[in-house]
């Protein structure tokens, strides 16, 4: 019974994203949902830091961007045959950079950590702008080819993204439920106690930082293939902010919450964006509603209701024998 409950979100996940293909709403919408899939990996990877470990990184666009740029540049340089390998290399590049950034930024806590991650990401964004001959400057990189297998119709790339993301999500899910995941979750609650359990807070945070950056890099690499073009905005701070928004709206305390958040954010851009260029205004409204009414995010609503019942039953639990 418990097993089924654990796997229920996975079943919903598969039914929804594969069901879309059966419904076949047209190229435009499949492309849109492909973006949701890729963003959701970015958001779930970010949430390992944010919701689980309690580290508010405001520079995750950097790792997303590195993944995208390495993948894009390798395809441009050598051709698209080894696309999947390039995505892995992009992610490895993101992880490599994150190790050194983590080494420095994790020395700080709270808002200082947040600001320093932002500073590094903005630095990288500035560099991609300036280094025109290397990164293409504000033109970005255009016409990134896909391997023959994945060309012709968006459905193939949709399926490819879905499979890659599902594998990554499963790995992240296993990590969250491992002893290491428990340690991360408890670092957020009480880092001092973790130290006095004989565990090194800094090392564990650094591991989480690198893992999170790796999977954000995978998402970036996948995005490079989706549109076939990348641009410096992928490294700009709103991209980092989107990760925080997606996780917060969906529910940072849950594993699948950020997936919902990715769906809401992309959906708002699509629906409200049709009527006004000020569509991001609607995100503000949604964030306000979520923060004020369900502080645990959309997927956190159920849990909140459950807790209330419990409190009514027994206000103070006396458990001394």
């Amino acid at each position, binding site marked *: 019974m418990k097993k089924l409950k654990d796997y229920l979100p996975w079943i919903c996940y598969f039914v929804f994203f594969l069901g879309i293909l059966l419904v076949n709403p047209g190229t435009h919408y499949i492309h849109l949902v492909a973006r949701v899939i890729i963003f959701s990996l970015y958001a779930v990877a970010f949430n390992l830091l944010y919701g689980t470990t309690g580290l508010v990184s405001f520079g995750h666009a950097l790792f997303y961007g590195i993944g995208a740029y390495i993948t894009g540049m390798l395809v441009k340089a050598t051709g698209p045959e080894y696309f999947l390998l390039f995505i892995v290399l992009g992610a490895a590049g993101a992880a490599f950079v994150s190790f050194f950034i983590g080494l420095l930024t994790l020395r700080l806590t709270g808002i200082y950590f947040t600001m320093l991650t932002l500073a590094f990401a903005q630095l990288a964004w500035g560099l991609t702008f300036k280094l025109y001959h290397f990164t293409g400057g504000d033109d970005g990189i255009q016409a990134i080819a896909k391997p023959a297998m994945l060309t012709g119709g968006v459905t193939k790339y949709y399926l490819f993204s879905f499979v890659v993301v599902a594998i990554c999500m499963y*790995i992240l899910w*296993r*990590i969250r*439920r*491992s*002893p*290491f*995941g*428990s*340690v991360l*979750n*408890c670092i957020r*609650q*009480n880092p*001092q*106690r973790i*130290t*006095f*359990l*004989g*565990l*090194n807070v800094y090392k564990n945070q650094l591991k989480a930082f690198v893992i999170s950056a790796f999977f954000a890099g995978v998402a970036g690499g996948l995005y490079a293939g989706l549109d076939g073009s990348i641009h410096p905005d992928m490294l700009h701070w709103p991209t980092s902010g989107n990760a925080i928004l997606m996780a917060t709206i969906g529910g940072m305390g849950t594993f699948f919450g950020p997936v919902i958040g990715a769906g809401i954010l992309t959906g708002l851009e699509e629906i409200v964006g049709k009527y006004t260029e000020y569509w991001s205004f609607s995100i503000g409204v949604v964030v306000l509603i979520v923060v004020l009414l369900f502080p645990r995010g959309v997927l956190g609503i159920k849990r909140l209701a459950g807790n209330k019942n419990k409190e009514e039953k027994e206000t*103070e*639990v*006396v*458990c*001394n*024998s």
Partner: protein
Amino acid sequence: MSVILEIKNLDKHFGGIHVTNHVNISVKKGEMSAIIGPNGAGKTTFFNLITGFIPSDDGSVVYEDRDITKERPEKIVKLGMVRAFQVSSLFLEETVFDNVYLAALSNFRKNAKIFADRMAFKDAREHTAFILEKIGLFHCKDLKASELSHGDTKILDIAIALTLNPKILLLDEPTAGMAPDERIKMMHLLKELHEFFQLTTIFIEHDMDMVFGIAETIRVLVQGQLIAEGPPDYIRQHETVIEAYLGKEVL
């Protein structure tokens, strides 16, 4: 009895305040000892220094013939010197079981496993159940730590420390904020645990019934200085201690 912990000339300043003033202490293996002293005497700072949580300015801490003065706190825990806190330091969103279970994972060096299911470790599960049973919290293992009464949070804090298989257990005011009957229960519990796990226990305490009830050695800290050290009967009659801390009317 052999000496398990040798503290020599330990010294610490916070700005202009001399919080630990050239303290020399040697703790015998298996001893149950208390540290007493007025508020601000530097008792908790003393624990913070010997557990490596804050660096000392001078002096050395030798544990089982090994200099641990400059060791990191998590390393000192792994070596067997473990503490519980004045204000219970728990993982409030987790259940009682999970609070102890995480310590058990650390104890069996399973905490870094990255793909295994966290509940997959039988030794850690059994150890957790054993500790909870021993300390009397097993029947509320599924409650969240935030739902416990104050007294139980203190007991859970000690349970977490015990799970780490300590040789030396440092307790910072185990009865702080407890009702009188809870204090007596805690006193008996500590004595029982001390004997059962063959611990060396050092506790900071303000409750004199408990201090004189179970401590074999009492050390008195006043303004960072160790002013007296000895068995309860000796401390009870020590002129300076009476003047500085105990007061005449208490005894």
